């Protein structure tokens, strides 16, 4: 079980320490850890689970904050990692984002939260919904309230009803004047296009995000027009398994507020909305670059926020790159970033220019990988469609909203 949790700033300073068991973990472990991270170059390269001479360490880095947990016993690694991820989610939810200052300003709340989330090294409640009832978030509303009512405590007087209810994710019977439920399909497309321009791999990872503000104990049913295209699914604990098994219908009592109802994966897609054609030819110490970007498969909605990024190989002395559309920037760490935005109607955006190689080099041997970013509002590229959303015992006024969004995940074009 976890013995201690530390929160470190991006300079390695200990912002918070929470001992969980009787085996006190000395703070010097953080120094060891930080030396280790530095020796690895950057934290991104360091493994999430490392063995120090005295402890096993789990680390999760979010927005420059390192969440570090220590243990001496054998335990399921995902339990440690998942828990730290939840801690960071809950904290950023509570504090409205994560950074050094916000944690230092609200460390009392962070302590309170950790106190409820883990006891004696074993995780308890990690549902933000429930925690919010035990410990009020430090928002403006509660500040105003406390001024008005004179009650300065940020802890509610009652215990969360759900701790005793059989639906642990839902707080007891909220009441809303306007009953609303929003369902968003958010998809990310991962694709790899190889040197010959062939689509090596293309799959979509998607999430069904729900934002529910419904009174009472609502029982919802969500169905898809084409559930058979889903390759694998994972559900929020609220989803009943049987209806899905028998006729691919999501039946659930939702938690209050925003949550991730389901995530899914669809593999073996046949095409991408965009094409990217890089050409690199090099001789006599110079390399000519030419990259074309265009629409391959019109999704029916505008593709916007198109970006292209690639790391210039280390053997390049200087680069002179221009585009006929959008802006090209070469960042400090030799990353070239081309912001295209939308594809214009009249021309095909292209990036061209020359790279100057190191003196002894004739030709380029290391070829960059282009990472593409884009966003399409209103379309789920996998083709998944929501059929309908029903509410058992519908209240008099109910508003239902649906949206879809696709963006590029790991979309790579090799040259």
């Amino acid at each position, binding site marked *: 079980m976890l013995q201690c949790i530390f929160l470190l700033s991006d300079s390695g*300073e200990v*912002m918070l320490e929470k*001992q969980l*068991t*009787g085996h*006190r973990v*000395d703070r*010097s472990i953080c*120094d060891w850890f930080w030396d280790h991270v530095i020796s690895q170059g950057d934290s991104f*390269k360091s*493994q*999430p*689970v490392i*063995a120090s001479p005295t402890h*096993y360490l789990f*680390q*999760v880095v979010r927005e420059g904050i390192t969440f570090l947990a220590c243990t*001496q*016993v*054998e*335990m*399921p*690694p*995902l339990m440690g*990692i998942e*828990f730290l*991820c939840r801690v960071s989610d809950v904290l950023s939810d509570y504090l409205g984002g994560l950074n050094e200052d916000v944690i*230092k300003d609200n*460390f*009392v709340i962070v*302590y309170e939260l950790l106190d409820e989330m883990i006891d*004696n090294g*074993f995780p*308890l*409640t990690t549902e933000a919904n429930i925690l919010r009832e035990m410990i009020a978030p430090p928002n403006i509303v509660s500040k105003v309230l406390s001024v008005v009512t004179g009650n*300065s*405590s940020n*802890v509610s*007087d009652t*215990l969360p009803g759900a*701790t*005793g209810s059989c639906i642990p994710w839902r707080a007891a019977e909220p009441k809303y004047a306007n009953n609303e439920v929003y369902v968003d399909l958010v998809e990310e497309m991962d694709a790899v296009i*190889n*040197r010959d321009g062939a689509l*090596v791999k293309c799959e979509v*990872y998607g999430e069904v995000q729900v934002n529910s503000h419904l009174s009472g104990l609502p029982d919802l049913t969500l169905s898809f027009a084409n559930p058979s295209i889903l*390759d*694998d*699914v*994972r*559900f*929020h*604990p609220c989803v009943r*398994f049987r209806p899905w098994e028998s006729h691919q219908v999501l039946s659930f009592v939702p938690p209050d507020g925003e949550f991730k109802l389901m*995530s899914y*994966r669809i593999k073996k897609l046949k095409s991408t909305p965009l094409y990217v054609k890089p050409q690199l030819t090099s001789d006599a110490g110079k390399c000519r670059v030419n990259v074309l970007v265009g629409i391959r498969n019109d999704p029916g909605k505008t593709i916007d926020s198109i970006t292209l990024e690639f790391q210039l190989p*280390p053997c390049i002395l200087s680069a002179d790159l221009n585009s006929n559309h959008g802006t090209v920037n070469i960042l400090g760490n030799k990353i070239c970033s081309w912001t295209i935005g939308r594809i214009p109607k009249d021309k095909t955006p292209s990036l061209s220019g020359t790279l100057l190689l190191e003196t002894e080099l004739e030709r380029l041997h*290391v070829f*960059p990988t282009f990472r593409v970013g884009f966003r399409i509002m209103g379309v789920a590229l996998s083709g998944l469609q929501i059929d309908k959303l029903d509410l058992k015992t519908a209240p008099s006024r109910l508003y239902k909203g649906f949206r879809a969004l696709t963006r590029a995940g790991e979309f790579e074009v*090799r040259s």
Partner: protein
Amino acid sequence: MAPPAQSQRSPSPSQPSGKSEVSDLKLQLRQLAGSRAPGVDDSKRELFKKVISYMTIGIDVSSLFGEMVMCSATSDIVLKKMCYLYVGNYAKVNPDLALLTINFLQRDCRDEDPMIRGLALRSLCSLRVANLVEYLVGPLGSGLKDSNSYVRMVAVMGVLKLYHISASTCIDADFPSILKHLMLHDSDTQVVANCLSALQEIWSAEASTSEEASREREALISKPFIYYLLNRIKEFCEWAQCLVLELVTKYVPSDSSEIFDIMNLLEDRLQHANGAVVLATIRVFLQLTLSMTDVHQQVYERIKAPLLTLVSSGSPEQSYAVLSHLHLLVMRAPYVFSSDYKHFYCQYNEPSYVKRLKLEMLTAVANESNTYEIVTELCEYAANVDIPIARESIRAVGKIALQQYDVNAIVDRLLQFLEMEKDYVTAEALVLVKDLLRKYPQWSHDCIAVVGNISSKNVQEPKAKAALIWMLGEYSQDMQDAPYVLESLVENWDEEHSAEVRLHLLTAMMKCFFKRPPETQSALGAALAAGIADFHQDVHDRALFYYRILRYNVSVAERVVNPPKQAVSVFADTQSSEIKDRIFDEFNSLSVLYQKPSYMFTDKEHRGPLEFADELGNLSIGEAANNVVPTQMVEENDKDLLLTTSEKEETKGSRNNGSAYSVPYDGSSTSVFASQTQIESAVSNPTLAGHSPQASFAIDDLLGLGIPAAPAVLSPPQLKLNTKAALDPSTFQQKWRQLPVALSQEISVSPQGVAALTAPQALLRHMQSHSIHCIASGGQSPNFKFFFFAQKFEESSNYLVECVINTSSAKAQVKIKADDQNTSQDFSTLFESALSKFGTS
């Protein structure tokens, strides 16, 4: 804004920045302590916040303890929480002052707000000061009976904390049985889960001393209890589900229909949003079906999709942990994943430890149908910016070639690598081409043509250089300029820093000499001269050896140095399959991430709460601790071989005197005698080789070492054992882990037995004649370790025995585990009587 973090190890006032502020705070706190003025809580809050923030950044504020406690009389819950936090942090270093806090904490434990009751109780138990435990028992007892589940939940954890501070207080107050009652009857699943985790820890710790505790611990994995948990599993929170699932892995279902029931019940857990639950479920599935090969296979198919989704959905940290598990499964059953190879393609900005895992998996899943695509993909990585990964991927290509798929195309690609003119690519490719040639000599023609074009000056890495030199030597008849390239390398002997390369150079020169003597002779001479003058011992020795063997007879030298070679069929694996199995048994644990079984990295005391002591796997690794005798034994044996029989008689007699006077009875020397006797008897009567109890008995008697009277032969009890019992090692291992120790005792071994026990085999044969079979054995004199098993006659009830015999103390430590606990006593008697006859019959 804050002073830099300081280690808390030095609470000495070495921080001038903090010191004045601390005394300042002290003053302010003192002023507020007695005040009842309105708004005082707000100013207290500010001060408390400052104190806690100092504490957080590592400034020692323990000197404020008294003041903090004085200020703690408040109704403000946030103030209380901060105060609890402070007290919890410093009570251990200020046990006397901690007494002050007991009062207000105990009062809070009776507060009408359940939240405050719970928090106070939690803080009270977190003080962890040994001399305050008496104050804990009362509040804990009422907390366990509290009407609010939150307080009960805290109280249950409090019991565990109390146990760790003072186990006897906890047991005396009879808390475990209260917890047990709560676990079985409480309506709140979180309370149940906390009880479960607390009881697991308490009973495991108690099990070694108390029979009742070990029985209770067994009851946790009994059928009714496991079913009780499984039926409610959906009500548990996700973390508690992990706990339950972990317990279920320890449960042994009685038949296959039960296995299917459990799997059906848990099937939907595979789609849980929490990755920890998914992995715990997968572990249950894998464990349950271990003995059902075809179902096990289906389980692989079933868990594939959830695992692959987990990899692509989570944060990089989560996907790494899942990927490590996937890696383990892929290595065990690559064919199951061979159609999913695209999931193991590396993404550009993945960290290199992830890429490395993926490369290994790509290598493993390659088969006839996908090799072409996988190798194409791997070749793209060879031009990767990340040089270590580029190297790994070239190595992966080579490994796939060694698996015999599509060798033709791969050889072409490797040869293309050689032409890429990047030094590290060339280096890796050379090493691979060498390995390939060792396996597929038929490709030598194509390869040699390309390798011949590589200038040895462009190859700097020792491994690659050694590979190139090996090829130059091996194929010198096909490479026109081989002798001259080698010659130039010999000329630069002094600049060659790697001993490995110099060794290879010597051998290559020899081979070249046998094939093309006139061209090589002078260079060989130079190489041998340089080698003999070399400061490196191995190089020197090899050169000298070559020189002498050449002088002795050139054709003998050729037979020694350059015999016809057989193609290598399989290259040795780096990790033994036993270790892999063991890691697999520890699925869903850190072992998988480190790729080492847990006994290799965790201390015994830190293993999980339900980890049963099993060293089955260690046996093969050898337990030759405090082992002095063997060397001595070897010496004696050497001497024996040189002496004549009469001389032997004499030495024996004289040494006997020595040992008889100094030590009345010395087991270790007896074993030496026994070995002598054996050799003797082996010489005189080869058919009796192995063990000759008669002779050793006679000698023992002859030496007059004062043998204690052989223990009275115990009358065999009614238990009948199956003479042809069979049990496969994996079942044994599983049972050993799951069953409790029924009996543990020390049996003394007769001196005859000790004398006969020179090697484990002797005892094995003896026990087999008593229908007790051995499954694993190991060790060297004086420590032997055996795992035996026996089966009840005409029943499938098994007895498992771990027996550690120390010949120097003539004692055997026996641990018996049984399917049927009631007959374990009978079996133990039987075992003892069998052991006592060892060496006498």
